[in-house]
């Protein structure tokens, strides 16, 4: 990639009011630094405390979702997860839009994740709360390294959320999750 392309990317992001973006391998260690910068940044906007917390909360859950579940991983035994993903936070009028994406290598995983998200999208606030509590109490699902409640947290804290799976035609898919916070 030449330098001009990087500049074009920069302009594209400015045009979309992107305040933060990251693309590459992600680790828990990196989250500490990015989260601290993001916190400083959103404090500048003097938002209501609740909105600020929700933005931060959805960001952490999205980030951890990539670090735990992206299928593009640097294998290094005994070391913490390092996985590839992409994240972008942008503003639009009074909303914050948080996007994250990562690769998923099996159709079964896509199917199960899609079912989970469709299910969450159809739930009312009360349903989400009850489901959240149920998941907090349940044993961690097999293949789930986190608490398994991150997606519910995202659904609860977002004003709206959307998702998509882009078929990469080689048996893998790119998963995208968009949260809008007002």
């Amino acid at each position, binding site marked *: 990639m030449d330098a001009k392309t990087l500049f074009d990317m920069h302009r594209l992001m400015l045009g979309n009011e992107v305040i933060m973006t990251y693309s590459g391998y992600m680790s*828990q*260690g990196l*989250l*500490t630094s990015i*989260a*601290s910068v993001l916190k400083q940044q959103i404090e500048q906007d003097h938002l209501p*405390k*609740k909105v600020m*917390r*929700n933005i*931060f*909360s959805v960001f*952490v*859950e999205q980030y*951890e979702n990539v670090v735990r579940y992206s299928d593009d991983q640097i294998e290094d035994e005994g070391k*913490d997860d390092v996985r590839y993903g992409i994240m972008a936070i942008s503003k639009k009028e009074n909303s914050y839009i948080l996007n994250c994406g990562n690769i998923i290598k099996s159709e079964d995983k896509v199917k199960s994740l899609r079912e989970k998200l469709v299910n969450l999208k159809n739930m009312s606030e009360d349903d989400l*709360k009850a489901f959240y*509590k149920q998941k*907090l*109490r349940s044993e961690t699902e097999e293949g789930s390294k*986190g*608490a398994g*409640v*991150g997606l*519910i*947290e995202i659904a609860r804290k977002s004003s709206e959320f959307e998702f998509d799976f882009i078929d990469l035609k080689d048996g893998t898919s790119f998963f995208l999750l968009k949260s809008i916070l007002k």
Partner: protein
Amino acid sequence: MEKINIEAAERSPKIICDWEKGEMLISGESYPENVTEFYGPVLASLEKFLRENKDKNFACTFELLYFNSSSAKVLMRIFDMFEEISNTNGHKIKVIWKVDEEDDNMRELGEEFAEDIENISFEIANK
């Protein structure tokens, strides 16, 4: 049992367990890199203490500013443990959930936990 005194870090809260006094404090932000590693030993000591000191009162104060979903799971485990032990052993366990006056978010999160509490005292208070 030895007192637990963990300093707060960027992503993990301060934790003090003063077994002599029967007091515990968890304060700050909680989204540790590895929740099990961070909370595991504390939860093990807490359970051991409560089961071995059935006649002692115990007060647990939370002064949290933020916690992620993995930490929420730990909090639920703590409250369920209090409920179960208090129910079976006649313990007097008290939870004090402290929030900044204007932090409605954290107040609501405390109220959500409090909804399921039956056997222990769960008080939400301003800092």
